[in-house]
């Protein structure tokens, strides 16, 4: 069923705000989405009704809290079609990528090995591995992009050909170009060259907008975050094949993640708890559950269809403005909702300031992708990203704001 945006918007308190008498136009969901009341209620309910710690108390409140937390795990596993034993909660996707870097890459790669990543990665899926490479002396290779913003798969095939690539880190969807990468294809390439290559995907931008099946993608690990998929900040996850997770050593040590401790030794808890040291984010887990149910009720196919259609209109609107250049693919079947653009003669900060004065929220800057900015030959871009609560009513204020910026700043 298509999404009824005007009705849906009523579930999001922030979207009812006015700024200086103007309707708020929120086009920055690729940075963080808005939060529906159902998510706020779920978190509030935990604090007002079941406030206690998880996994230890034998009393009712503790059982309820544990149930909320573990239900979030099974909800997320269902949502991305994965085994709940492989779902590790983290504070965000960055921590999920670091978990993979510390618990696998740093324990397995060394001189002579190669880690393959791409030039379009968010710093979260690049820096943890670059850092490890500096410490351990393995090589990092980068898949370039084509002129239309797709990963260059021929180059990728060459980069894995010598059979030395043991780990691949790739984004499912680019936060700047919007490109939906063929991660299944990359995984197949890597494994054809080396059977035991481990493929790690940054799914931060994919999970909010696309139906994702971890099993069908056939990858080993998948990082995601709650706050871009209607959930609260402070919770993300690393989804790992349980067989691989079983072989991994803990990243953070302490309470919760142990089975037995003596003064001299420790045995680890079973997966996934082995990777969740300390008291977890219980309210946030409850909020994430509510966000997942909200998305499931709409249906991710409907969310994707809405996104694809609206992104098409957004691209049309932007390219119709004199002096505006859009980065990334124009083929809607291989792109998500983030659209980066430049306005000739106007710096992105000035575009953002003008849009802000008209109640329009867009992101400006390097989007934590400095290597990609260098590839594109720019210092920064402006980025508009639509989500399920946006519709075509949000496009005219964007267009008018950009045109006003052109008129105001043009030299």
């Amino acid at each position, binding site marked *: 069923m298509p999404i009824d945006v005007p009705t849906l918007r009523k579930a999001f308190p922030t979207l009812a705000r006015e700024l*200086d008498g103007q309707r708020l136009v929120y086009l920055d969901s690729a940075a963080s989405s808005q939060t529906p009341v159902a998510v706020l209620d779920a978190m509030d309910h935990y604090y007002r009704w079941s406030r206690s710690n998880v996994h230890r108390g034998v009393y009712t409140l503790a059982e309820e809290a544990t149930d909320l937390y573990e239900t979030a795990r099974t909800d997320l596993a269902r949502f991305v079609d994965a085994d709940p034993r492989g779902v590790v909660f983290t504070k965000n996707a960055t921590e999920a990528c670091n978990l993979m870097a510390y618990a696998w890459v740093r324990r397995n790669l060394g001189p002579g090995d190669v880690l393959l990543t791409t030039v379009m990665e968010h710093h979260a899926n690049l820096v943890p591995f670059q850092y490890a490479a500096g410490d351990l002396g393995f090589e990092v290779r980068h898949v370039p992009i084509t002129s239309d913003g797709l990963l260059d798969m021929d180059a990728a095939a060459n980069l894995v050909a010598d059979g030395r690539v043991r780990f691949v880190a790739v984004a499912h969807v680019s936060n700047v170009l919007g490109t939906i990468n063929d991660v299944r294809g990359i995984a197949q390439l890597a494994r054809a060259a080396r059977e035991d290559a481990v493929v790690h995907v940054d799914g931060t931008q994919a999970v909010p907008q696309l139906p994702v099946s971890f099993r069908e993608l056939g990858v080993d690990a998948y990082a995601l975050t709650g706050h871009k998929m209607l959930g609260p900040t402070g919770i993300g996850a690393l989804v790992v094949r349980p067989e691989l997770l079983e072989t991994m050593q803990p990243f953070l040590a302490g309470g919760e993640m142990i089975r037995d401790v003596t003064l001299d030794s420790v045995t680890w808890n079973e997966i996934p708890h082995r990777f969740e040291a300390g008291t977890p984010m219980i309210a946030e887990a409850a909020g994430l559950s509510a966000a997942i149910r909200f998305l499931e009720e709409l249906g991710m196919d409907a969310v994707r269809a809405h996104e694809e259609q609206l992104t098409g209109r957004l691209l049309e609107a932007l390219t119709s403005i004199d002096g505006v250049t859009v980065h990334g693919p124009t083929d809607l079947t291989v792109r998500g909702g983030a659209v980066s653009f430049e306005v000739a003669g106007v*710096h992105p*900060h000035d575009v953002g300031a003008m849009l802000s004065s008209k109640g329009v929220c867009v992101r400006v800057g*390097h989007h934590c992708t400095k290597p990609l900015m260098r590839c594109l030959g720019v210092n920064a871009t402006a980025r508009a990203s639509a989500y399920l609560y946006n519709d075509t009513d949000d496009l005219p204020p964007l267009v008018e704001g950009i045109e006003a910026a052109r008129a105001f*700043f043009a030299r």
Partner: protein
Amino acid sequence: MSMEDLYQEIILDHYRKPQHRAPVLEGESVHVHHSNPLCGDEMDLRVRVVDGQVDGIVFDGEGCSISQASASAMTVAVAGRELDDALALTEDFRRMMHGDEPSRPDDLQDGIAFQGVARFPVRVKCALLGWMALRDAIETYERGASAHTVEHDDDRPPSG
């Protein structure tokens, strides 16, 4: 926010018709390169020092209107000044960006138009880019060096 609060006409004038904007300076004594990692802005500042004074100054770079206009206004305000005086004026501007009343509004000349930028915290670094480059250029010169590159946020109290 209102666009007019941030972008005064004087600022736009400097942005559209920058003063002392050039890629080279004849007889250059010192050259510094500053970048703002937050937004990727770049600033090259070249100063010619004669008899302890700013005898010549040019900037070049890429950035938002606030950063470019502020650098332009800075070059006008400090041209011909003694180095110590230029440093003192820089500190006056820096403190103004943190909400203090400037003690030398007349000497800041068009720089005073940037006072309102202090209310937009994310843009303060833009307005400071050229001034912080100037301070670094003078400090570099006084150390006896002729070039310096700074790739981080240089909004700190003055050294010494």
